[in-house]
């Protein structure tokens, strides 16, 4: 187990393409860090540089304090789970898991190898399949064999390259908790690459958001969600994604396509002399006005909207409200959508209402929104003008304390079980 330190890591391919543009990241011992971003953001390249399958063009990579830039993968003592599992088809499950142990010639007796493999198999509930070949296993079982191969070796760190993307949705949820449980119990430093923001939010102690090879923000999931540093992070984190609306500042009022919001003094100071901004509102910041109690409705503003489509999900009701965007920010929002692997479809507001709401397709609904939660972005740079660094720091400290506590609890449970 070891800390991993990345300092100004750059990857330039032979044809001059810059895949990773100077990423610096400190990963603490025992921490679970997620690298997340849309396709082509360099997250997999970064992981492959850490494990040593890809050369580092410039910058320093240290594992446990030692610079490992020029070390071969085998000398870095890391374990990796590949997206397509990369199991050895000619070996049984037992031999697949034992493979890393057998490579360390003379380090383990046959007895020790069997013990270790059987322990890993028990952890992953693979005991019944040890003598089978990978070809005869289901997707989830293969995934677990790949994880078994990683944990059997007591590596310095685990690296996961989109390990769940080949599984169906139900299995993905199960394996996600399985990975989280395993990481807590073993307390091994873990770097996990995914393009799925749900995986990033649920698994990570900290999440590093990448875009076109550049690190955008590293923070706890809650820090990212509540205080994104820019438009990109705000749009990437959260599902359904944050709504972006053009906002015109007219005197003391912020004029949005569907609603006018009064400006507070603090917000006015942050806005400076800007006349046009992009306003970010998460779907859950809205509510059906008829369902908000009086105390809450006093904090927000209500407005009328024509609901186009609704989706009832049991726990929530998503309503879609189309609106016309301001041509001056349309370009910026379209570019953002492309960056997020979107299709640049119509501009619409997604609101998450209480599932009790009676709003239906085509209704003229009265909606309520809480402007205190509103985020305001600069239309040129995309920077979050309402960003509060102190609040993020506080959230992250809390998160770090939580992480240590849960790690200790898991270790204590493990010890109690062993004795």
């Amino acid at each position, binding site marked *: 187990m070891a800390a991993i330190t990345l300092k100004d890591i750059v990857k330039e391919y032979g044809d001059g393409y810059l895949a990773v543009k100077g990423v610096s990241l400190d990963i603490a011992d025992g921490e679970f860090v997620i690298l997340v971003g849309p396709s082509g953001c360099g997250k997999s390249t970064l992981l492959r540089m850490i*494990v*040593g*399958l890809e050369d580092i063009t410039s910058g320093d990579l240290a594992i446990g304090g030692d610079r490992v830039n020029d070390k*071969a*993968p*085998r000398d870095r*003592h*890391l*374990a*990796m789970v*590949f997206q*397509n*599992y*990369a*199991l*050895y*088809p*000619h070996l049984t499950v037992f031999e697949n898991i034992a*493979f*890393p142990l057998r*490579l*360390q010639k003379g380090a383990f007796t046959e007895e020790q190898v069997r013990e270790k493999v059987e322990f890993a198999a028990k952890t992953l509930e693979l005991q019944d399949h040890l003598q089978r*070949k*990978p*070809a*005869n*296993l289901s*997707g989830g079982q*293969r995934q677990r064999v790949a994880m078994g*191969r990683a944990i059997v*070796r007591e590596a310095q760190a685990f690296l996961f390259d989109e390990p769940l993307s*080949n599984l169906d949705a139900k299995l993905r949820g199960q394996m996600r908790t399985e990975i989280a449980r395993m990481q807590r119990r073993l307390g091994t430093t873990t770097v996990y690459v995914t393009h799925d923001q749900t995986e990033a939010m649920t698994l990570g102690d900290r999440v590093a958001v990448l875009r076109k090879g550049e690190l955008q923000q590293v923070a706890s999931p809650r820090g990212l969600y509540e205080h994104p540093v820019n438009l990109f992070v705000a749009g990437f984190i959260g599902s359904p994604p944050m709504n972006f609306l053009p906002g015109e500042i007219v005197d003391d009022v912020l004029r949005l396509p569907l609603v006018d919001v009064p400006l507070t003094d603090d917000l006015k100071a942050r806005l400076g002399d800007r006349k046009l901004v992009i306003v970010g509102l998460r779907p859950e910041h809205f509510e059906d006005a008829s369902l908000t109690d009086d105390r809450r409705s006093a904090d927000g503003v209500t407005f009328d909207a024509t609901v186009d489509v609704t989706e009832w999900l049991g726990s929530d009701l998503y309503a879609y409200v189309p609106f016309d965007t301001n041509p001056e920010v349309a370009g910026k929002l379209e570019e953002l959508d492309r960056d997020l692997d979107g299709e640049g479809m119509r501009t619409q507001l997604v609101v998450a209402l209480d599932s009790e709401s009676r709003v239906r397709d085509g209704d003229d609904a009265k909606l309520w929104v809480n402007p205190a939660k509103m985020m305001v972005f600069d239309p040129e740079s995309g920077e979050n003008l309402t960003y509060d660094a102190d609040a993020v720091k506080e959230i992250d400290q809390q998160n770090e304390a939580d992480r240590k506590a849960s790690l200790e609890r898991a270790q204590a449970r493990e010890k109690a079980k062993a004795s």
Partner: protein
Amino acid sequence: MRAMSTRLKVAWAVITILVLVYALFPVFSILATSFKLPSQLNLGTFLPKTWTWSNYEQILTGSAKDLFLPSLRNSIGISLIATFVAVVLATLAAYAIARLDFPGKKLILTTALGVSIFPVVSLVTPLFNLWRNIGLYDTWLGLIIPYLSLTLPISIWTLAAFFRQIPWELEQAAQVDGATAWQAFRKVIVPLAAPGVFTTALIAFFIAWNDFVYGISLTSTSAARPVPAALAFFTGASQFEEPTGAISAAAVVVTVPVVILVLLFQRQIVSGLTQGAVKG
């Protein structure tokens, strides 16, 4: 797979038997003929009236010994060498074609295909003249080279297709697991590539083993003449006797190594070994 209905099973059994009979009847016919006495060849019975080893004695120890045994040695030697060289070269070429991106990749593949397009008969006359002038006529090398031209293209194509299926990510996985580049190659890639190489070697061997046109045109003595060509020189005990029995016996003898090879490497030939390495 779902259990087949009885009718389907019967239908498949009938088809299988028909195909087996169609394929194996000539083999049995030759086998039966090889045990017949020369005088009883024309009796019209399928099985010999009196079973005899005389044909085998004739080709292995008797009058045809000097014709058959050297040619058997030639066939085995030439085919093995041609196969070995073809497989080694094809493995290297196919590895490069499957794994590396280099200019001229398409050119190599189309050239290989182009070489195998020309009918053997159209090449054999110029080769005959050339070989006589440079002293390769009636030598082992004089046959190995044309055999390579037959076996190399198909070896390169089958091996390249096979290598493309190998998930090369496994090599990286092995390296992360703690293997050196050589260990990764030997413990992961070689076991996966072996069936393909064996299959290719067998195909190449059969091509060389079965050749007749080069064998009869580019040789003149038992110094290099392979079995298929030598069979044409068999004669009966007198001019009134057909050498059919002896030829049948020789045919059975040359079939045996092929059958042994297939049985021996059956397991390696079984494909589908790469299944399950990666999803999809």
